[in-house]
């Protein structure tokens, strides 16, 4: 991995929440380097600071202490608008709860990040359709989120995260709300995207999901407890072939 350039470098990140008289140390000195094209799973017990860390990586939140360099830019020195720009251009976010705009079609949801940079309407639609094609939902572009299954909604969210050609995709428990087969399907998409050169960092509780990634970082009490490379990486496409496809077929028929 050392041969690819660094994309994320954090040094001694601290994040403390103050709840009345109690101080909650969500992060205590987290230092991690992540290179381009890595595929990292962040694991750890509930409350160990994974989401806090992801939010800082995603420029949604700022640390109390420490340094965060993203793609050569020291994020700590940026103002709100510059952070928004970084979120728009360099980062794609995928959430556990999908976070799609309701009553807004899949296509428009995917188009959303492009509203905040200057593209023509046609470019925007073309790129959104292309992203939907990548996640295999081109034929559902006009569906509203409530007309899509959880797995499909998450695929729309992934399409939205990659539509601006980000350097990294951050996914906080992207399979947390999905059944096991759908989870593997989502991991298949992530593996494909990673092969195309996108750096992916995801949080998961499930060790078998982590096996689809290349590197596992385990958090404990706001610290990095271990950081290991995955030796026997699972291939989602291969694995899907061994899984029965009944559930999915039923859903497809109903939808059609």
């Amino acid at each position, binding site marked *: 991995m050392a041969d690819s350039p660094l994309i994320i470098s954090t040094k001694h990140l601290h994040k403390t929440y103050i709840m009345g008289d109690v101080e909650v140390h969500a992060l205590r000195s987290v230092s991690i380097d992540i290179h381009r094209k890595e595929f990292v799973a962040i694991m750890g017990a509930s409350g160990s600071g994974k989401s806090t860390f992801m*939010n800082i990586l*995603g420029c*949604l*939140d700022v640390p109390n202490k420490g340094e965060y360099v993203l793609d050569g830019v020291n994020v700590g020195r940026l103002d*709100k*608008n510059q952070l*928004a*720009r970084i*979120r*728009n*251009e360099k980062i794609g*976010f995928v*959430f556990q709860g999908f*976070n*799609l*705009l309701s*009553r807004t079609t899949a296509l428009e949801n995917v188009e*959303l*990040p492009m*509203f*905040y*940079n*200057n593209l023509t309407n046609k470019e925007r639609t073309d790129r959104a359709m292309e992203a939907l094609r990548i996640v295999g939902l081109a034929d559902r572009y006009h569906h509203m989120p409530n007309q899509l299954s959880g797995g499909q909604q998450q695929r729309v969210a992934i399409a*939205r995260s990659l539509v*601006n050609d980000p350097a990294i995709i951050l996914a906080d428990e992207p399979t947390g709300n999905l059944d096991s087969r759908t989870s593997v399907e989502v991991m298949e998409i992530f593996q494909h995207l990673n092969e195309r050169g996108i750096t992916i960092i995801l949080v998961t509780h499930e060790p078998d999901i982590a096996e689809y990634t290349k590197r596992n970082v385990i958090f404990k009490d706001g610290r990095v407890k271990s950081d290991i490379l995955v030796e026997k990486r699972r291939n989602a496409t291969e694995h899907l072939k061994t899984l029965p496809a009944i559930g999915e077929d039923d859903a497809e028929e109903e939808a059609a």
Partner: protein
Amino acid sequence: MNILNILKVAMRSLNRNKLRSFLTMLGIIIGVGAVIAMMAVGRGAQSRIEEQIASLGTNVLMIFPGSSNQAGVRGGMGSMSSLTPDDLAAIKNQCSAVQMVSPAIRTGGQVVFADNNWATQVMGGTEEYFAIRNWPVSSGQYFTEADVRGATKVCVLGQTVVDNLFKGGDCIGAIIRIKKLPFKVVGVLAMKGQSAQGSDQDDVIIAPFTTVQKKLMGVTFLGMMLASAISDDAMTDAQSQISELLRSRHKIQAWEDNDFTVRSQTEIASAAESTTQVLTILLASIASISLLVGGIGIMNIMLVSVTERTREIGIRMSIGARGRDILFQFLIEAMVLSLFGGLIGVILGVSASKLISVLAGWPTVVSTMSVGMAFVFSAAVGIFFGFYPARKAAMLNPIDALRYE
């Protein structure tokens, strides 16, 4: 995000809550509608007065008994007597800038013809009264100088009196009774319609002032006089000549106030005009309070909307929306609300004006200025009251907004 896309988003979110959007707009609709209707009524009154100045003639002077700066005096009987028939003759003979002069002595009276009764007012003048007031007859003729000298019981009727006494029958030559005295009808005046104050100018009987003085009222003084200058340019000359003459005739010392007032029609009309202007402004300001209330309604709903859509704001921010983008989104939404309300308000105001002029017979004038102002005002209300909620949305912290339940 370009403006068209923001507009699209705003329209859609308003469309989702149709009833709520409509109720929010209602304040603006009523406010703008009321402002426009009130301004139209006021402008209508003004244009009616302007018309009247034209129809009265710009060279008419009114001479009242009583001083203009002694409040209340004009109504007292003592001062009513300050103008006499001799004054009239003197003005006629000695003021070179005055062309015609006539008294305009007024009394109320019950008029009877056959079974028909009508309460109206009787105006006493000379044969010149009609020329001064620029009032032609539609049938018959005026009374003559001889009638005035002889105090004969003849009269000329206004159209309203004719309509009420004769119900369409022929009236020239008929004998009517005014306060029980028989008068011969010699002519009918052309219609003049309503005055600026809304009274019916055709509800009048005009008779020789001598007859009115002696037979109907039993007085020797003149209530009021109308005079016309020889030209528009001679108005000030006529005014000062009359003043000088009356001062010397009434033996008023230099330090004393006049016991009469000379005013031009234009002065009176413009006084009335400025009164209606004040009234218009007053009405419009009262109406604009509802515009203000409408604005507060918008602010209220926008605050609710921001809270409801906190998560949406979080999502938008997480994918790169800047505070500014969020601010504009909500500001534009508020503006769409208020401008749309303004548009409907304009339609409502214009229709209300039309309805008022039909129902109340009161002319209304919707000026483009008031429509334009209503628009600008409602946009301003949108910006002003939409700004705080929009700013609140824009200031949200992305992570807090995303976590919001």
